[in-house]
């Protein structure tokens, strides 16, 4: 008790120096907490984006993840409705589930044969209702209501493409895309194009005509999607592009096509029983992944063992998530170490000066019978008090600053997104980082106090008394 009282009074004694040291700790704590809150917001935002599109887990045909991109149809899940039912109605899984929805991915060639252009694409057929359910997931309390997927309420032949696809297929003008520039010299480009009769092979044109028979014509945004069926034969679907959406990553934006699941299944499987390449499973909370995954694996090994299936989590499916999180974690670690070192030297310097100034006191206390450990403890408690007070004030200051930033109307475009979002730092509601910062800074201040404290404890008593 007396050690604590002595420490507090000694800190008060040299108020200006104590406040300067305290300020360094406060600034350090604020920097760590604000940057930590900022990276947390990025992580949550990224996670939300991935979970809203690809779920927490995906049930796939075995090896689809490794080899399926070359031939998705060969890795289809047969009787997928049964698989989904088993998952939905499993008593262990059911409480954890928010959405179970199928998706079919396929590769093909999309062509605007009226314009004489085409390109390879990666198309995804999905259930619109399921996709909209996925989009409602908001475990991290982000503001705003997500817009429904662009295919919502569209005709069965509707499609959404990436802006890159729209650009190559010359759909910018019909789709009213302002950011999409027309080719520099259309005349030159068209010179190399064969006449209109040769734009589409006759058999494919017939297939396309058959597909589009009876559907409302929409010549301006119509494209043909050519793909290989599960049997290896070519098939064509005529789709009406209803919207072009920027996919943020150019490589994806240049190949992205989204269409209704039924349309995609008809294209790949024709009259055969339809399959899907993945069943998306979304959970209430990301923390439920291990338990849900274990349960699904158990089901796949028992009830659903009739076909080789496996489970992948969203981090495996989206390596970009791990890379981005790792990148920010590395920066956060670097900043934390830097701040730790600054605090270490600041507090060390303060305590060294205190030891020099209080040498006669040290001699007096030692003469009176205080052990060396008592002297050490006295200075280390002072360091600890600086650390505790500094980190507490830092927490309060960072909460206040976070409030100002979060309500300041500042926006930015985070990685992996195309739209600006409010700049947010998540400090409030995350007690663990605050406790971590407090413990870490207190430990740093105690470590930095230890060397001066040890030096003070080892001072020769006679020399210390003579120091007055």
């Amino acid at each position, binding site marked *: 008790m007396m050690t604590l009282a002595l420490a507090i009074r000694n800190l008060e004694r040299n108020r200006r120096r104590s406040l300067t040291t305290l300020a360094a700790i406060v600034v350090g704590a604020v920097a760590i907490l604000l940057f930590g809150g900022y990276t947390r917001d990025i992580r949550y935002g990224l996670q939300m984006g991935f979970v809203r599109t690809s779920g927490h887990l995906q049930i796939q045909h075995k090896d689809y993840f490794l080899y399926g991109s070359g031939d998705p149809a060969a890795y289809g899940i047969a009787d997928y409705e049964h698989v989904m039912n088993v998952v939905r109605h499993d008593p262990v899984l059911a409480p954890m589930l928010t959405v179970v929805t199928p998706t079919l991915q396929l590769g093909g060639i999309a062509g605007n044969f009226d314009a004489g252009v085409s390109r390879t694409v990666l198309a995804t057929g999905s259930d619109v209702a399921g996709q909209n359910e996925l989009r409602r997931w908001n475990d991290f309390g982000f503001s705003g209501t997500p817009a429904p997927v662009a295919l919502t309420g569209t005709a069965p032949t509707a499609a959404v493409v990436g802006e890159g696809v729209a650009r190559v297929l010359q759909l910018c003008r019909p789709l009213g895309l302002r950011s999409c520039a027309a080719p520099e010299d259309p005349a030159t480009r068209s010179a190399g194009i064969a006449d209109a009769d040769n734009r589409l092979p006759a058999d494919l044109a017939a297939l396309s005509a058959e597909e589009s028979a009876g559907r409302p014509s929409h010549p301006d945004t119509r494209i043909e999607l050519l793909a290989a069926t599960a049997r290896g034969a070519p098939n064509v679907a005529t789709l009406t592009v209803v919207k072009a959406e920027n996919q943020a990553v150019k490589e994806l934006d240049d190949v992205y096509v989204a269409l209704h699941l039924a349309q995609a299944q008809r294209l790949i499987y024709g009259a055969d029983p339809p399959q899907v390449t993945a069943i998306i499973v979304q959970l209430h909370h990301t923390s439920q992944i291990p338990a849900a995954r274990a349960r699904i694996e158990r089901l796949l090994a028992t009830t659903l063992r009739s076909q080789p299936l496996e489970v992948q989590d969203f981090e495996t499916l989206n390596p970009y998530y791990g890379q981005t999180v790792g990148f920010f974690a590395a920066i956060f670690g670097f900043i934390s170490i830097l701040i730790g070192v600054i605090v270490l030297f600041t507090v060390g310097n303060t305590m060294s000066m205190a030891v020099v100034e209080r040498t006669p006191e040290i001699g*007096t206390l030692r003469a009176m019978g*205080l052990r060396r450990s008592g002297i050490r403890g006295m200075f280390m408690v002072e360091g600890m008090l600086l650390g505790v007070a500094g980190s507490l004030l830092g927490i309060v200051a960072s909460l206040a600053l976070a409030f100002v930033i979060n309500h300041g109307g500042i926006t930015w475009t985070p990685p992996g997104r195309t739209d600006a979002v409010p700049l947010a730092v998540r400090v409030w509601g995350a007690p663990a980082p605050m406790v971590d910062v407090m413990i870490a800074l207190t430990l740093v201040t105690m470590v930095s106090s230890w060397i001066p404290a040890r030096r003070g404890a080892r001072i020769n008593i006679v020399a210390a008394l003579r120091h007055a």
Partner: protein
Amino acid sequence: MRFVRPIRRSSVLTQISKTYRIGSVELQALRAIDLEIRSNCVTAIAGPSGSGKTTLLNLIGCIDRPDTGELVVAGRQVGTLSDDALSDFRASNLGFVFQSFNLIPVLTAYENVEYPLRLNGASAAQRRERALAMLDAVGLSAHARHRPGELSGGQQQRVAIARALAARPRLVLADEPTANLDSQAGAAIVELMRRMQREQEVSIVICSHDPQVIAAADDTVVICDGHIESVRRAGDTLGMRIPSAQPCVHVAGSLAGGAGAPS
């Protein structure tokens, strides 16, 4: 907490030597000193500057160690004690009064007096009772809440005396306790120490060349160039040789300005 009446034990120095080395220069501060400090007496160590009296006081106070010789302080052989054991020994057996008072500036007068009691593990009630009693004894009850910076030099030295005696030590070491005070305050401090020594039945060793201190002492040790030049014990002046092992016994009413007369 040792709160029994102190056992009268003398301090004995046998062939004590101490040499300081400053670079390549050796300075022999004490040369084979033999001395007995009688218990329950005020012993003054006098001598010119650089004679070795502070070194002698530091050795008796167990805050320095001799190079050679045997040292018994308050009846305890201290030469082989570890640093922690020596600290504990000082806490429970010794009190210190310094020339510059050396009060802890961030503690009040009361807390300064209470501090040695904390070191000895006294309970809160014991600490309070004893600290207030000691402040009362030195006439500073009204200043208990004052910090050293709010007290005069004489008041600070009174607090220091109260602090030195708070834990009922066997021996109090005072290094030039009047040097930083004017003659009036110095005389008051000498009188106070003399009185407290009798009331608390404690041995006091005062290192000083202040004539008031020397006059008030029972025994006076004069040291010069690291040698003991003379030892005058109370009673010598009355023509009565006092065996060194015999403690001082004071006549009631005998105060500063004269040595206590043997019974």
